């Protein structure tokens, strides 16, 4: 047995998984192993932050995708038999985890948001299903017990005093069948919607892209940021993709969420469940968002939003 393993696509995610892994390893009385991608410096950081062993993955050729590491990782997992293997639920992480699990012939809990050990020291994982309407609890009956964990589920591990550990270099993987033709990094957005105290979310009830202006004014007066539903970002491309809220998007915990022309399908609600106060504007009195709202305003957003903006301006003296 070789303890708890963690694999994150990037530094931040690896540190979060390390933190979760350290907690589990303490309870199990075992060690923690992390993977570092191509970077000796990262490997040292992971040891400082609690890893006992770091597997340093060898360099990829420019046209090799990150997923080419799958066979290398599967090989060490077969040799070492980890008890638990946590992988960050980035898109690439999710694909790699599923493929590793398939090769090892083991179960995998997807996008788990809570982990604990039961009385038999089995890993109990909680995840959402039915678009977020339900919480599913799963246990792996095979080893390693595998889970993917969404980024930011855990706090990152911090450097500890006098840490020592072993760095083991793994061979660079041979080229697989997939060739990368081009990588276009996403333009980094300055705004982190998960940090905003007030979020005003637009849905398909907003008819035209120009009309976002109207909602932006409301957000400005309320001191908030614009968020949206998945179709607004992914189909209409009116707002960047890291602004959509929900089970497959951002999960936010603001003081106030205001949904404007948002129907409130469960997949969206899953992302705003932890808002302190939920306010909704929708012209359909039967829209599901009203079931999830504290303050529901039934009305046409084009009439309600300007009024609401004015009233807020008045009371906040802005």
């Amino acid at each position: 047995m070789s303890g708890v393993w963690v694999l994150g696509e990037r530094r931040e995610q690896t540190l979060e998984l390390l933190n979760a892994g350290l907690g589990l390893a303490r309870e199990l009385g075992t060690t923690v192993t992390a993977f570092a991608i191509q970077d000796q410096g990262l490997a040292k950081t992971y040891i400082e932050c609690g890893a006992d062993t770091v597997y340093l993955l060898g360099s990829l050729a420019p046209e090799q995708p990150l997923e080419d590491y799958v066979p290398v990782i599967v090989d060490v997992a077969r040799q070492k038999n980890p008890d638990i293997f946590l992988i960050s639920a980035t898109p690439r992480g999710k694909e790699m985890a599923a493929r590793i699990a398939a090769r090892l012939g083991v179960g995998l809990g997807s996008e788990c948001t809570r982990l604990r050990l039961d009385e038999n020291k089995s890993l109990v994982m909680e995840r959402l299903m039915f678009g977020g309407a339900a919480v599913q609890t799963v246990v792996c009956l095979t080893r390693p017990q595998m889970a993917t964990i969404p980024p930011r589920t855990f706090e990152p591990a911090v450097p500890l005093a006098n840490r020592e550990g072993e760095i083991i270099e793994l061979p660079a993987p041979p080229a697989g069948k997939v060739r990368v033709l081009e990588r276009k990094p996403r333009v980094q957005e300055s705004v982190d919607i998960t940090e905003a105290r007030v979020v005003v979310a637009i849905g398909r009830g907003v008819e035209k892209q120009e009309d976002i202006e109207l909602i932006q004014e409301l957000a400005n007066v309320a001191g908030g940021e614009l968020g949206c539903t998945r179709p607004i970002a992914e189909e209409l491309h009116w707002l960047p993709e890291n602004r959509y809220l929900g089970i497959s998007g951002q999960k936010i915990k603001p003081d106030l969420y205001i949904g404007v022309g948002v129907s409130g399908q469960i997949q969206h609600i899953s992302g705003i469940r932890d808002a302190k106060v939920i306010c909704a504007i929708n012209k359909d009195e039967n829209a599901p968002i009203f079931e999830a709202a504290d303050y529901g305003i039934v009305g046409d957003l084009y009439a309600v939003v300007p009024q609401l903006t004015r009233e807020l301006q008045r009371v906040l003296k802005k």
Partner: protein
Amino acid sequence: MPRIITCYKWVKDEADIKVDTSSRQLTLDRVGYKISDYDRNAIEEAVRMQEQHGGSVIAVTVGPPSAKQSLKDALSRGPEEAYFINDPSFAELEPAQTAAILAAVIKGRLEYDLIICGEGSSDLYAQQVGPRLAELLGIPCATYVNKLALEGTRINVERKLDDGIEKISLPLPALVTVLPDINTPRLPGLKQVLAAGKKPVHNIGLKDLGLTCEVTLNTTGILAATMERRRLRFGAGNEDIRKVVDALLKEGVIA
């Protein structure tokens, strides 16, 4: 000319799920069923590719016998035949089992160049069946694809990842999982629905597979995700808007 397989799941419509807030139990007996949302994009992409390049499209689904209802809907969207792999024990499969069943059916019976799955199923949303199936078949895969182009014996795709776009090229046969923004699924007309009833359906049972699907992931509980909300209703008049703003001020959530 590509021979395409598209995999879809027949799922409970989560919008119909009722919840008992005190016990957190789900009431599932009166829910409707649907083709999993993003699998409609998977079917559409397969049919579009066939319209462009010729070839064939087969729809495959694994489920309990009651999932028979899905076949007409699926076939009305364009595939020319369907494989219906069913057994009463297939009602609550985990992703590893579904992938193993699909692999067993495809390996022995179907010739293909491309398999198209959805990003994730609407009920489990595990995002596992696609990449697992690719591994079991020993073919390359690309997940989270929002653009797909056939280039001779390869496909070039764009994957949408959290840090940007990755364009990759894969030799066929290959598997892709598609995002909802890859296309807009067509709405089948009456003619397509009528034609669907005449298309061939191949029924395959558990016995035909010679496979035991061992459980690797055990579900020990499913509870409603509940939320305490006040559910106060207001109209669009000035008076009401003022009340809402007052309440928000009192809550201390705006300043």
